[in-house]
């Protein structure tokens, strides 16, 4: 087992709305990312996966607020650090984050190179323009991006190229953990594949040492990550290796999610897709029992009484359900 680079224990965060209501978007989430591994986080929109990504950086600003838990990056606990220190010492160097639609965040009036200069200056690595250019050039070369991109304005780049540029800038300072939130969702399939290939290359070349990949596209997640975590209503409901979670899901929600995968492969046609009726609960006032109870086919009265804990299995898998592994498999076999 490799060294654990990111160790998150019982992290809870919330949003405070304009009307002073609390939205508990991340609820007691624990996760570990090993060196050289990629962890995937799956879930529907509104399940808290993007909030989790934001919370993992330890840099909180309204409306996001920290409640409890620890974030340990390579042995250093950052969850209670001063925000300014987090920004200066952690972001970019220890943890890099690529938000959703990051490519649209490039300043249209600035050339790519001046954006890179800004990034390096913020982390007070005072070096001359020449040095910065040289450094960016080498990085782009390593990543297989054309050097002339540096001298271009964002509008001159295609969507895929913009996204790859943003990723390149994010890994400029060789962060230990890279968090990518839907990095390829807005792109067409070919550009998406190029972005994924680049992420894989970053891992292989050791420019980033581990990856957290967030998306709602399960086939993509399956191909990119080693382990997958499924989130539902702010909680982790299932954890396991990519293969286990996709082909042998335990939690009824994960089962439903995997049953809705469509890929252009033989044998897919005619297989009935799983539909989950209803909508996720309101996180302003989450139900006290199992949060999936209202949509679950196998719901029992006991499900609604007390909160269901995450069951850890000896083989490293985990799921949040009152049924045992065997009971669930039996239920799925009978449909």
């Amino acid at each position: 087992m490799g060294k654990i680079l990111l160790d998150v224990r019982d992290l809870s965060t919330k949003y405070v709305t304009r009307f002073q209501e609390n939205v508990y978007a991340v609820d007691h989430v624990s996760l570990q990312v090993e060196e050289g591994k990629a962890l995937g986080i799956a879930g529907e929109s509104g399940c808290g996966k993007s909030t989790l990504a934001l919370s993992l950086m330890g840099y909180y600003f309204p409306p996001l607020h920290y409640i409890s838990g620890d974030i340990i990056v390579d042995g250093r606990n950052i969850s209670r650090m001063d925000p300014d220190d987090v920004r200066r010492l952690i972001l970019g160097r220890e943890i890099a984050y690529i938000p959703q639609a990051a490519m649209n965040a490039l300043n249209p009036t600035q050339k790519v190179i001046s954006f890179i200069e800004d990034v390096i200056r913020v982390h007070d690595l005072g070096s001359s323009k020449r040095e910065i250019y040289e450094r960016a050039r080498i990085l782009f070369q390593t990543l297989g991006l054309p050097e002339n991109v540096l001298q271009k304005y964002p509008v001159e780049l295609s969507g895929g190229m913009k996204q790859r540029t943003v990723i390149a800038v994010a890994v400029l300072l060789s962060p230990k953990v890279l968090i990518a939130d839907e990095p390829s969702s807005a792109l067409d399939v070919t550009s998406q594949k190029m972005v994924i290939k680049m992420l894989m290359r970053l891992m292989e070349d050791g420019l980033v040492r581990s990856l957290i990949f967030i998306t709602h596209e399960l086939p993509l997640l399956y191909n990119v990550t080693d382990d997958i975590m499924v989130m539902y209503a702010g909680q982790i409901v299932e954890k396991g290796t990519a293969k286990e979670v996709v082909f042998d899901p335990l939690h009824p929600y994960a089962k439903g999610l995997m049953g809705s995968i469509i890929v252009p492969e033989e044998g897919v046609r005619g297989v009935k897709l799983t539909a989950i009726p209803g909508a996720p609960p309101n996180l302003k006032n989450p139900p006290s029992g199992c949060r999936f109870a209202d949509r679950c086919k196998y719901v029992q009265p006991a499900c609604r009484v007390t909160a269901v804990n995450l069951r850890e299995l000896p083989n490293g898998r985990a799921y949040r359900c009152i049924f045992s592994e065997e009971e669930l498999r039996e239920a799925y076999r009978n449909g």
Partner: protein
Amino acid sequence: MADRQVCLSGTGLTKVFGFGRQKTVAVDHVDFKFYESEVVSIVGESGSGKTTLAKMLLGLLTPTEGEIYFQGQKRDISTQRKRKEYWKNIQAIFQDPFSSYNIFNKIDAVLLDCIYMRGGRRLPQAQKVALMTEACGFVNLKFEELTNKYPFELSGGQMQRLMIARIFLLKPKILIADEPTSMIDACSRATILDMLMQLRDEIGMTLIFITHDIGLAYYVSDSVYIMERGKIVEHGSADEVILNPKEAYTRRLISDVPKIYEEWDLSTV
């Protein structure tokens, strides 16, 4: 299958936007034949002209060149009356449910429009309500809960289901679904697709999916048309096109989609 009737077909259909140096050919001499009660997918990446083609089929855009034939007859939508007649036969579901509704109209108005369109303006109120309740019931919505509400009070999935309820009332011969599931969650996607299929079985309409998702196209359709830069590069039955693609573009498109049963080859880009 000799008894299959051609429902909608086109020859040399072309749409050019702008003129002079700014001319862009969005759809370039496209030929197609859609048969009655089959499920067709038109697959293409963004900018391939698939939405423009759909709008021409719907009669929302006038073709620059070429002809569209509806049930063997040359389509004539030159007057508002003829257009209205045509739209009784061809309807659409759009990609973004949040922008598909007039936010100032109540849900009742949306459904009533459909009843009026089928000549039900004079029906007694009770019968109108019964029709609307039936339509909502078909898509698992309760009309009593929806009446006097505005569409934006619903979730994305519910709005899209209401769209299907609308089609249920209209019972058109052809339905064009423009990326109907791309803005909603995977779990609701199955529901929407199920309902569309069920509706097709019930009223025997031709269902045309416009999509960029080749997996979805393979899953739902009988025949598939692949579009690239305004041209149809390949078409045929779903199995033919997806499992044994002949054109390089189709092959690339399929290889670029992540798989779960086969190895996803990253070396091709």
